């Protein structure tokens, strides 16, 4: 009997020492997460402390200036806005159409494989390579110049894999019985897609689009490579404004700047007053980016609650 209790005591001691590792690792894990979160908090704190005082209506309404106190982000946020419009106008239809083709129409052959391999490859290409593509192709070969159009198309290509993947997932989540029901009513494939799949998948598709756009708005490297200038003190010409009146599409070909580039420009200056501007602009950009991300996450959450197949 005492041998058994000895063994029991031994086992209990071993278990205790092994369980200690459970506790240690729990602490280490939390510590690692805390470190990451701490960095994020420090980042935000610095932006807020340095940048918040600079936030004002004038900041949004002023052009950049050599005088730090008067500099603003007008050309930057307007530029970002227009570039995003071009990006969205290209990426949304092409992305959704690609996803529909791959999910609903494509047959299982080598060609489909090629397309799918391409999409997953492109997701891993560094963004600056897209910039090089844009420089060679859009700026020079197509002759779009260093313009909003080039930037918008480049970013659209960049976020295309994101839109395609999330749209495919949204379509895949729709049960087969819905399609069968529609076919049974005599619908054609396109009618099934346009009347049923796209509407039902819209929340998921929107989520993907928003995530893609939030990524695009913060991209710097490809836009620099195209040659966006960093000191722009004018806005793209709006159609029918100015003298002589600007054409309908002149704004597309106008030189421009975007928020990340303005931040880059101000960060690179040695004068700390400009750093405050950079912090303020960063605050605005982060607010936009995380706001869009948050919107997408909220949409995904709402979607999971509402649609019960």
């Amino acid at each position, binding site marked *: 009997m005492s041998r058994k209790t000895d063994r029991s005591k031994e086992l209990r001691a071993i278990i205790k020492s092994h369980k200690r590792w459970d506790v240690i690792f729990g602490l*280490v894990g939390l510590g690692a997460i805390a470190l990451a979160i701490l960095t994020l908090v420090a*980042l935000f704190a610095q932006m807020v402390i340095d940048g918040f005082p600079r936030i004002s209506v004038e900041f949004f309404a002023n052009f950049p200036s050599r005088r730090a106190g008067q500099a603003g982000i007008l050309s930057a946020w307007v530029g970002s806005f227009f570039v995003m419009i071009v990006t969205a106008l290209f990426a949304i239809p092409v992305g959704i159409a690609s996803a529909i083709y791959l999910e609903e129409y494509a047959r299982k052959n080598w060609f489909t494989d090629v397309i799918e391999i391409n999409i997953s490859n492109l997701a891993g290409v560094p963004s600056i390579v897209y910039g090089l593509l844009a420089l060679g192709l859009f700026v020079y070969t197509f002759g779009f110049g260093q313009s909003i159009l080039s930037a918008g198309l480049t970013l659209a290509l960049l976020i295309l894999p994101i839109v*395609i993947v999330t749209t495919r997932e949204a379509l895949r989540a729709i049960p087969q019985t819905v399609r069968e029901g529609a076919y049974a009513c005599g619908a054609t494939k396109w009618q099934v897609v346009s009347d049923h799949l796209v509407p039902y998948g819209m929340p998921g598709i929107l989520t993907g689009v928003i995530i893609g756009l*939030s990524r695009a708005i913060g991209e710097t490297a490809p836009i620099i490579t195209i*040659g966006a200038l960093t000191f722009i003190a004018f806005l793209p010409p709006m159609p029918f404004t100015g003298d002589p009146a600007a054409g309908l599409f002149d704004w597309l070909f106008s030189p421009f700047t975007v928020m990340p580039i303005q931040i880059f420009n101000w960060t690179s200056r040695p004068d700390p007053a400009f*750093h405050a501007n950079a912090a303020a602009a*960063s605050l605005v950009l982060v607010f936009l980016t995380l706001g869009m991300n948050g919107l997408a996450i909220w949409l995904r959450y709402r979607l999971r609650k509402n649609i019960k197949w």
Partner: protein
Amino acid sequence: MSASTTSGRIVIAERLTGAARLAELAKIKVARKRKDRMIEFVLLLAACVSVFTTLAIVYILLKESLVFFSDVPVWSFLTDTQWTPLFDDAHFGIAVLLSGTLSSSLVALFIAIPLGTIIAIYLSEFANHRLREVLKPVLELLSGVPTIIYGFFALLVITPLLQEIYPGLPTFNILSAGLVMGIMIIPYVSSLSEDAMRAVPMSLREGSYAMGATRFQTATRVVVPAAFSGIASAYILGISRAVGETMILAVAAGMQPNLTLNPLEPAATITSFIVQVALGDLPHGSVGYQTIFAAGLTLLLITLMFNLLGHWLRRKYREAY
């Protein structure tokens, strides 16, 4: 009575019967088929945009690089120890830029891989459901911050902090940029690794617990080995991300080509070099212009190599759960 196809809707009047009805339906069928085939073609074109993008990237990079390599022999490109493309006595040794890419990536991965793995194990095997639901989106925020802002943070917060510890640290240095890059890459590593671990079936964990293992023993001896291919993919993704990062390095590491692996010095990477040239004047067809494409081609080949490695690893070790 006959069928009318107004605005695509098909209205078949009830009086038609028998052979006439069949004939009418056949006419509608032909029209619909034609329309469907057109739509399919348009969708296919859209899907081909991605193929077109890849082809365009390869074409552009190759085209300009070929011009570059007609001037600069490949051998000296690979072995020269100086990188001074815009000087009169120009040297084009890519190794200089590669040293910057290598040292910055190593610093970043030194942070991202251990921390990312630990966080993944913790979230997958230790944290309870509610904690995980809260922490995962917060971690994802890390990867949602635009990299220019990280660059700003590295230059204006991390560098001064490091200078307190090591006063000789230059304003531009690889260490600062690498550390911030590492933190930014953590979610890439942790998210994919965690997904891989959660995919390991509960029956393996039960088998381990049934043998009297503790949580830590089960996590490290059974779950992590079982999720190996997914975790390896996550690491490869982290490496790819580090190699391709641009803005953090452009802002905080200085853009001065420097053949060194010492992270306490400033250095240019392949990516930050391209930015530096792009910031200046880039007359089409000039030496500078072609150089960035040669550099870009090198970068693309490196990331392609890692992508293929990841693909091969996944193929070879894929566990079917």
